[in-house]
């Protein structure tokens, strides 16, 4: 059984956790395909704008630490990608401390585990589809990717799976763990087949997660994130053993959510700090 993971960056910690969870289920990863690092392309107007927004120091540090600056120019995203923590200094400029840089990158980890690695310039490209075919992919797993088109989704012989940070079909889209809390719903994870829509594929498995003891969004996301890798690996195992059935989603039953505004995030933070309990049984 050939399992391949698709991810957007070679610096994505999430993928290592998925590989480890799969190993715990005695499943071996055949290969990892990730986006090749691209040099930043910023024109003068963009550079002035970025310096105005984040301060010149941030721009220089971001260039120094990241070769993906174009895609991860927000400090929070920068942290998520590189494992580098920004702090807010007195003058309001973002500063970045060097820590966690000793963690292995996916590439280092994959090399140690003898997992095949392929870099592509575009995850929807023919090169990516060819790489998947050469690896004779049976199951493709998403480890944090942008929108992936049909030409990639049709390559795996069994299916493409994604694990979603909320219960589907109710919460599709972005920041869905936060949206679950904002709307008073249970927090959970869903493993689903990937189709051409946004989180609309058939559901394999879903599970609620108790986040009552998570007193911040970061703690809650870490809790859900840990659980989702375990659940994804468990689903892959059950799929290999043909013990899972697909449940098509009722698209009308859910909504697509988007990036949550800071003011609403603060409301979510307050609810978590008080010990969040959902209104709903699930």
């Amino acid at each position, binding site marked *: 059984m050939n399992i391949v993971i698709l991810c957007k960056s070679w610096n994505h910690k999430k993928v290592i956790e998925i590989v480890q969870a799969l190993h715990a289920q005695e499943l071996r990863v055949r290969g990892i395909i990730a986006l090749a690092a691209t040099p930043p392309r910023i024109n003068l*107007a963009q550079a*002035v*704008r970025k310096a*105005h*927004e*984040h301060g010149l120091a941030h721009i220089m540090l971001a260039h120094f630490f990241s070769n993906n600056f174009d895609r991860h120019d927000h400090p929070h995203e920068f942290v998520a990608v590189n494992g580098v923590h920004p702090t807010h200094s007195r003058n*309001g400029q973002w500063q970045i401390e060097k820590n966690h840089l000793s963690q292995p990158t996916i590439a280092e980890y994959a090399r140690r585990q003898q997992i095949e690695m392929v870099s592509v310039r575009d995850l929807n490209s023919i090169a990516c589809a060819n790489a998947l075919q050469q690896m004779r992919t049976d199951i493709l797993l998403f480890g944090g990717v942008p929108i992936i088109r049909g030409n990639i989704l049709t390559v795996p012989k069994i299916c493409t799976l994604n694990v979603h940070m909320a*219960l589907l079909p*109710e919460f599709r889209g972005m920041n869905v763990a936060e*949206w679950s809390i*904002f*709307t*008073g*719903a*249970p927090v959970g994870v869903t493993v689903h087949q990937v189709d051409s829509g946004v989180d609309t594929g058939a*559901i*394999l*498995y*879903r*599970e609620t997660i108790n986040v009552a003891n998570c007193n911040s969004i970061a703690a809650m996301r870490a809790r859900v994130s840990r659980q989702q890798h375990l659940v994804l690996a468990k689903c892959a195992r059950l799929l290999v053993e043909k013990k899972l059935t697909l*449940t098509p989603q009722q698209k009308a*039953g*859910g*909504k*697509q*959510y*988007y*990036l*949550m*505004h*800071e*003011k*609403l995030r603060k*409301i979510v933070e307050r*609810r978590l700090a008080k010990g969040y309990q959902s*209104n*709903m049984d*699930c």
Partner: protein
Amino acid sequence: MAALRAMAKQLRDLLEVRLYRPSHFRIGLQDYFDLRTPDRALQSNSIHLAAAIDWICRAQDANGDGGVAARYRFSHGWMASYPETTGYIIPTFFNYAVLMRDDKYRRRALHMADWLLSVQHHNGAFPGHDVSQKSEPRVFNTGQALLGLVRAFRETGNEIYLQASIRAGDWLVAMQEANGAWNKFAYYQRAHTYYTEVDWPLLELFAATQTLSYYEAAVKHLEWTLSYQQANGWIDKCGFRDDAAPFLHTIAYTMQGWLESGATLQPEEPAKNIYVQAALRAAEALLHRYEIRGFMAGQFDRAWKGTVAYSCLTGDAQTAINWLRLYELTRDARFLNGALKLNDYVKSTQDLKSNNPGIRGGIKGSQPIWGRYIFYSYPNWAAKFFIDALMLEDKLLREFERPEGRYEHRHSLQKLES
């Protein structure tokens, strides 16, 4: 030769908008590099709100007649007072007076209403342009003046405002076609769906007078507009002239007319009202487009694709109001979320420090300022909608400051056997 002529024209245009003035040049430079205020440096809503209110106060004082100057133009400075927008600024000032518990804003609102009485035509209509030009009556402008007059009557009980409102309402009813549309005395002499924004004041007048003809005229027009909504939520005939890619400003007018009319007609269950649902269809399409792109274009085509690279700030503020109202009516938090982002965007374009009183606290027609909608100008209606949007945002967010019991949740989660 043609290139030289084009360059000469560009130079003439730049001279005309007086970019050599330091305050104008600064705005031009900021917009060229898109140097809006970063999110982390935005002030609280109350500061942005107060700056916009002060700007409108200066616009009202600019002509000394009680009306509010239509806009501050880079080329000419303050323009003459504008009846249409002075009409709908009146409710904004009454609301702000209540919020701030300051009677001076109420007095200003009444001064505006008194000025409206002085420019009303004998037949009850209101003029189409600002008062510097001799202008024929206009349906839309009369509707907006009506909104202010009815509110002035509600606030004071003074019959003079009611009588003026009735004359305006009667004129609107008389001008309506048999099919419910307004062609005569309409902008470019053609029927527009964004005249739903006239239906709402007519329904307000009906509420004040219980005269059925106002209600019937409003509903007849609302029905006519519904027939122009497409399956994807798009609304035909909602532009001034360019129906292929109308401004967000008029799209938002149409939605607001539907929303407020629906909420007035069915106050007990507004979310189920057909006009509110029509607004919801358009609002959802617009929200999706905005969130995916991360930018609100100034003009849209029939597929809800943004057709321009500039943003219509007036339309942005109006859309924020519509989304906030939809959140209020449906409790769909995605609309609240989108509105917060749009409000932040407009806040990031507001200059709070300029020495130029025409710029400080005002809201541009377009971002950047040379965008097609009301270019190189600060229209009073942009500031008005911005104020309404911030006041509504604050009101809705205050709900979250109360001790929370059970959270609002409208999903019916189904158990899935795994």
